[in-house]
């Protein structure tokens, strides 16, 4: 089996390496070649890690030569959002604050991918500290959507989505606090999953909103994402993350199970909401029909308090961000502006110069909302509204296995087209309630827009710890589309040849 690496699934790569069709080193070189030939335009990467990649690939090849059984992702090229620590790399969070930060240890999610035999080829661009939905707030450079380089890839895991969509890597990890895996996946035409809160350890991932953050995989197929989730959960509970749960199981085992008799909820009012592009509405109705065509019962459900989720989210997320980012004082690590006579001045100026505009805005909002005058009015109220939203979902999931809804109200927009922060916040309407409640969610590319020609993603949300069932429904949606395994056409097959 030969050809361009971007045509292979994760399992095909691992099986090919195990069978000796090609070596892990050849695969690593093909991925690095694809990055070299494509990333000048896509700009998904913050850094590539050729040395680490070839060392890891060499270990896989040596293990095979010694007759050992290879782990399930042996030789599969993977890249990580640049908020995940990996010893031997910088972890910048796309911020001037951490521009020269050297990872002191390796995040559990990264380590588990490596333990499964995956080969690390680099670290990926993101919105600064994951604040944003365009990746344009990176302090270093923007990332371009591989389907149309004038457009944003979404965010905050925009580098992860773009690297997968352009075929530079088979799979990437991202993090999702309010939609930051699912929304860029939708805008770039790939699959992106936010597992249930607690499924994947966050140890070693720079924190944004601790009651919301979750790590998850992006890939070009539901199967590739499930294979990565297997690796991420394989070690069971991580004792370094108090929220981590034992969720080890084979997420590939039931992907192609029949979905006949399953029930999926839809919320008609959401499809009439202002700001929803007509082609997204059409795509969602088609998705409903495709599920119904496989025997899924589609019923109406209601989440009456969902409209409050944006406000609740921006209260909770800003407060948690302020609390988490207080650690960046320029003393133990991070940007420090020298020459100040007192610690207070040094801290204040280092933070002012180290953080970009959006990082400052979110922290300022959080600082205000946690002040004595605003705490009860906003922070406590938001946590009570969270209880109402949670109850809404509980009622809905008593009736249905999953809820089908758009991921983003529009396909990818042009760089700079939406500049008002408040307008960008509103674009998160379909994804953020999922984080507020801690449920699982996944975005699956379902078609190219009838007007824009750009990818459109459909989102499925499921109850907590029903991740495997969610993947089965996502696979049903994918099966009825023609988007499975698609690489953005301008990049498919460019470099990355397996000899």
């Amino acid at each position, binding site marked *: 089996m030969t050809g361009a690496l971007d045509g292979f699934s994760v399992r095909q790569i691992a099986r090919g390496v195990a069978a000796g069709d090609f070596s892990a080193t050849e695969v690593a070189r093909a991925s690095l070649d694809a990055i070299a030939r494509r990333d000048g335009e896509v700009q998904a990467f913050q850094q590539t890690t050729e040395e680490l990649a070839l060392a890891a690939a060499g270990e896989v090849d040596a293990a095979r030569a010694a007759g050992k059984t290879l782990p399930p992702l042996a030789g599969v090229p993977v890249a990580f959002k640049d908020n995940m620590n990996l010893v031997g790399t910088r972890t910048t969070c796309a911020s001037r604050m951490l521009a020269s930060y050297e990872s002191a240890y390796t995040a559990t999610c990264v380590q588990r991918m490596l333990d499964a035999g995956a080969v690390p080829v680099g670290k990926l661009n993101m919105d600064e500290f994951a604040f944003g939905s365009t990746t344009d707030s990176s302090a270093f450079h923007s990332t371009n959507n591989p389907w149309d380089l004038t457009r944003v890839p979404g965010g905050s895991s925009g580098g992860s989505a773009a690297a997968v969509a352009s075929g530079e890597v088979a799979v990437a990890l991202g993090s999702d606090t309010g939609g930051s895996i699912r929304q860029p996946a939708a805008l770039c035409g790939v699959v992106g999953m936010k597992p249930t809160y607690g499924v994947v350890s966050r140890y070693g991932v720079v924190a944004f909103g601790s009651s919301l953050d979750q790590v998850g995989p992006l890939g070009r197929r539901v199967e590739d994402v499930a294979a990565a989730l297997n690796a991420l959960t394989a070690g069971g509970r991580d004792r370094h993350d108090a929220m981590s749960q034992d969720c080890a199981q084979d997420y590939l085992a039931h992907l192609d199970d029949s979905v006949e008799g399953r029930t999926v909820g839809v919320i008609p009012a959401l499809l009439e909401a202002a700001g929803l592009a007509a082609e997204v509405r059409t795509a969602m109705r088609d998705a409903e029909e495709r599920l119904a065509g496989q025997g899924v019962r589609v019923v109406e459900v209601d989440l009456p308090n969902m409209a*409050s989720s944006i406000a609740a989210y921006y209260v909770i997320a800003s407060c948690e961000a302020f609390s988490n980012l207080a650690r960046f004082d320029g003393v133990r690590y991070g940007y420090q502006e020298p020459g100040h006579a*007192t610690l*207070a001045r040094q801290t204040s100026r280092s933070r002012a110069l180290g953080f970009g505009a959006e990082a400052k805005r979110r922290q300022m909002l959080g*600082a*205000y909302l946690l002040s004595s005058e605003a705490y009860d009015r906003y922070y406590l*109220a938001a*946590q009570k509204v*969270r209880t109402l939203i949670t109850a809404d979902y509980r009622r809905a999931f008593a009736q249905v296995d999953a809820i089908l809804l758009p991921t983003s109200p529009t396909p990818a927009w042009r760089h700079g087209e939406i500049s008002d922060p408040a307008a960008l916040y509103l674009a998160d309407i379909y994804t953020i309630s999922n984080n507020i409640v801690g449920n699982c969610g996944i975005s699956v590319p379902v078609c190219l827009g009838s007007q824009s020609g750009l990818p459109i993603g459909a989102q499925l949300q499921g109850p907590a710890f029903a991740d495997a069932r969610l993947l089965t429904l996502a696979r049903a949606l994918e099966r009825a589309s023609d988007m499975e395994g698609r690489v953005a056409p301008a990049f498919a097959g460019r470099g990355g040849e397996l000899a």
Partner: protein
Amino acid sequence: MSLSRQDVAAIADYARIGLTDAELDAMTSYMNDAIALLDPILEYDIAGVEPTYHPIGDLANVARDDAAAVGLSLQEALTNVPDSQGGYVRVPAILGEGGAS
């Protein structure tokens, strides 16, 4: 309720983010817009509703065995320290002009 420029300056001081005058104007405008966006939260009937601070409701404190384990070495811990001396992190005076506030 709207925040004045002075209010925002006080928040910036508390948050240890030293904004310039120009940044302070833009930040005041942003803060008031953002808070207006949060106002729907005030319209919900939440009397008697318990807050949810966390998605995993029944969290128990996780204790580990009190056993020694290898952590970061001194050298590793100092890798990213901007200013150190003799194995210690060095900082400017913590008291003095503006320092104790």
